[in-house]
C-alpha cells in the first residue's frame, strides 16, 4: 500500500515536468523562422491544405490558444501528418517504435551482462591484476566514440567475418534478433564501461563494511556473502546510474540505427531533421520524452524495492 502511494506520488510529480516538456515540443515548431504553416507543410503544399492547417491549429489565434489546440489534437492521438512519407505521424511512430524499444532493451541487457560481473570481479580483486586489467578495459570503453565502434564492429563481424547480419531488421524474429546484436553491443560498450567503474568502486566500499565482516563471522558460505551482502548493497547506487545510461542509449539510437540501417525512431528523427519534416520531429521527440519518464518511473520503483530505507520524500 505504501509502495503504491509512492508510485502514485512519483507519477504526480512527473506531470508538471511532462507539461513543460510538452510546451518545449510545441515551441519547437513555433520557434521556426517564418510562416509556421509553410515550415510544417513545406513550400509545395497546396493553398487549401495550408488554409485547413491554419484553421485546425488556430495559427491566427494567440499562442496560448494554439497550445490548447495542440494539446487537444494530441488527446485525440492526432500527431499531424508527415510531409516526407505522406502518412499520419502516429502510424509512422507505431511502425518504428518496436525497433528502438527492442534495441534499447537488448543494449541494456548487454550492459548489465558485461558491467555487473566485471565490475564485481574488479572490486573483489582490488589492485590485483584482474582489477587493473578490467579498469584499463573500462577506460578504453569510455574513450571509444560509439559511432566509430559501430562502424568497426560492422566492418569486422558483419563485413569481414559475416557472423552477423548487417542488412537491418529482417522479417522474422530470428532476423530481428541477429540484426540487433551488433548495434546493441555497440551501444552497450560505453554504458558497460561506466557501470563497471561504478560497481567496482561500490564493491570496494561495501567489502570493507562492518556488515560483511559480521556476515563472515556468522560462517556464511562465500557465495552467499558475495550475493546477498556485497552485491545486493553495491548495486543500489548503480541502479540510478544505469537508468541514466539507458536514457542515453535511447538517444544513441539516433546514431546507431543510422549506421546499421535500422528503421527505428532514431533514424526517423534524423531523416525528419534533414527533410524538415517537423510534425515527425515533434512526434518523435514526444515519444522519446514519454519513454524517458517511463524509465525514470521504473527506476524509482526498482530503487524503492532494492533499498528499504527509501522514504516517500
Amino acid at each position: 500500500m505504501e509502495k503504491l502511494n509512492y508510485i502514485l506520488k512519483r507519477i504526480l510529480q512527473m506531470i508538471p515536468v511532462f507539461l513543460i516538456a510538452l510546451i518545449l515540443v510545441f515551441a519547437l515548431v513555433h520557434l521556426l523562422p517564418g510562416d509556421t504553416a509553410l515550415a510544417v507543410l513545406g513550400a509545395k503544399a497546396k493553398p487549401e491544405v495550408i488554409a485547413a492547417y491554419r484553421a485546425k491549429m488556430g495559427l491566427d489565434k494567440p499562442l496560448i490558444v494554439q497550445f490548447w489546440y495542440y494539446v487537444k489534437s494530441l488527446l485525440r492521438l492526432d500527431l499531424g501528418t508527415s510531409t516526407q512519407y505522406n502518412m499520419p505521424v502516429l502510424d509512422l511512430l507505431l511502425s518504428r517504435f518496436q525497433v528502438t524499444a527492442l534495441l534499447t532493451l537488448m543494449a541494456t541487457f548487454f550492459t548489465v551482462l558485461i558491467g555487473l560481473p566485471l565490475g564485481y570481479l574488479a572490486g573483489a580483486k582490488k589492485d590485483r591484476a584482474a582489477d587493473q586489467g578490467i579498469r584499463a578495459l573500462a577506460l578504453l570503453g569510455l574513450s571509444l566514440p560509439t559511432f566509430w565502434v559501430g562502424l568497426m564492429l560492422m566492418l569486422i563481424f558483419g563485413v569481414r567475418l559475416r557472423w552477423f547480419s548487417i542488412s537491418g531488421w529482417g522479417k522474422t524474429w530470428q532476423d530481428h534478433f541477429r540484426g540487433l546484436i551488433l548495434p546493441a553491443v555497440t551501444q552497450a560498450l560505453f554504458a558497460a564501461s561506466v557501470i563497471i567503474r561504478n560497481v567496482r568502486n561500490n564493491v570496494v566500499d561495501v567489502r570493507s563494511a562492518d556488515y560483511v565482516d559480521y556476515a563472515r563471522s556468522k560462517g556464511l558460505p562465500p557465495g552467499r556473502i558475495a550475493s546477498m551482502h556485497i552485491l545486493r548493497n553495491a548495486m543500489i547506487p548503480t541502479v540510478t546510474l544505469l537508468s541514466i545510461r539507458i536514457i542515453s542509449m535511447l538517444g544513441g539510437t539516433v546514431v546507431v540505427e543510422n549506421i546499421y540501417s535500422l528503421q527505428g525512431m532514431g533514424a526517423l528523427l534524423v531523416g525528419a531533421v534533414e527533410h524538415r519534416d517537423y510534425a515527425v520531429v515533434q512526434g518523435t521527440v514526444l515519444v522519446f520524452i514519454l519513454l524517458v519518464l517511463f524509465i525514470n518511473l521504473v527506476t524509482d520503483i526498482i530503487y524503492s524495492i532494492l533499498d528499504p530505507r527509501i522514504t516517500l520524500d
Partner: protein
Amino acid sequence: MENILEVRNLKMYYCGRRETVRAVDDVSFSVRAGETFGIVGESGCGKSTVCRTLVQMQPAPGKILGGQVIYRGKDLTSLSEKEVRAYRGTEIGMIFQNPMTSLNPVMKIRDQIFESLKGRGLTKKEMLDQAVSLLRLVDIPDPEKRVSEYVHQFSGGMRQRAMIAITLAARPKLLIADEPTTALDVTIQNQIISLIARLKKELGMSVIVITHDLGVVNEMCSRVAVMYAGRIVETAATRELFDSPAHPYTKGLIASLPRGDGSGDSLKPIPGAPPSLAGEFPGCAFADRCPHATDRCRTERPELRPAGPEHFAACHLTGGNA
C-alpha cells in the same frame, strides 16, 4: 573447570611489502567453560584483532605466523578456510561494536536470522517461530511485528539486541562480544550488559568481552587479560586485578578511572601514546610511558611471570619487589 578455548603463543602479523606490523604478538590466554573472560586495552592494541584471528578472520594482509588456538581440543589455526567456516557462527559467535553498520541494511531482521538457522532442516514456519522467540529472548517488544522490519527501523539499543539474537540463532558455545556497549547510551549499556549475563547463564555459553572500559570488565568478567601493543601484559581474576594490579600499565588504567568517592584529583591519564606496532622493538613496549622504566626495560622484553594466585604480569619490576 575445563577450558573451552586455549590460545597459545598466537602470532599474527600484517606482512606488507615495506614493513611488518606485529598486530598480535605471542598472545596466550584461556577461557574456561561457562565464564566471562575480558580482554581490555586501548584502541589499536590488537584486542579485536586477536578475537578475529581465532577464527581466521584477521584483515588482509594478516598472516598467522605461529601459535595455536585450541577450541574444545581442536587447533583452529591448522584448519583450511573452508573447515574453519564450520566453527564460525555455530561454535564461536560474534557481536560487534556498532549494530547500525554491522547489520545488513537491506535485509529484514528475519532473513538475517534465517541465515544463521539454515542447514538445520527447519521449515519456513519453524524458522519464523524460532526468529520470533529469539527476539523475545533478547527482550525486543512486539517481536512478531519487528521480525519483519529492517535495522534502520530499530533504535540503538534494539539494534544491539537484534544483533545478539541473530548471533544466538546459530547457538554458539562461545560468544565474542567486541565492544558490545561502546556505541550505546549509558542507560542502555547496562541493559545490554545484564542481557548478555542472563543469556550466558540461560544458554550455558562462555563469553569473551572485548572492551576499553574497565567498568564493563568489572561488571561482567570473572577473569581478564590486559593487552598493550599487541601483547598481553597482565592477566588475573578481575577482583585480584583491581585490588593488586602488578603491571604499571594496568595501574595506570585503573588510576585513570573516575572514582565514585568524589575526590577530584584521582583521575590521572597515562602520559604519551602507544608505540607503532611496525618493526622491531627489543624491550618492553610500555617502557617509554612507564614512570619506573629502567635500562633493562628498554633492551630486554619481559615475559609473563607469576605475580600472585593465578595472576601473571609481564614486567621486570614485578615478582617480589613490586
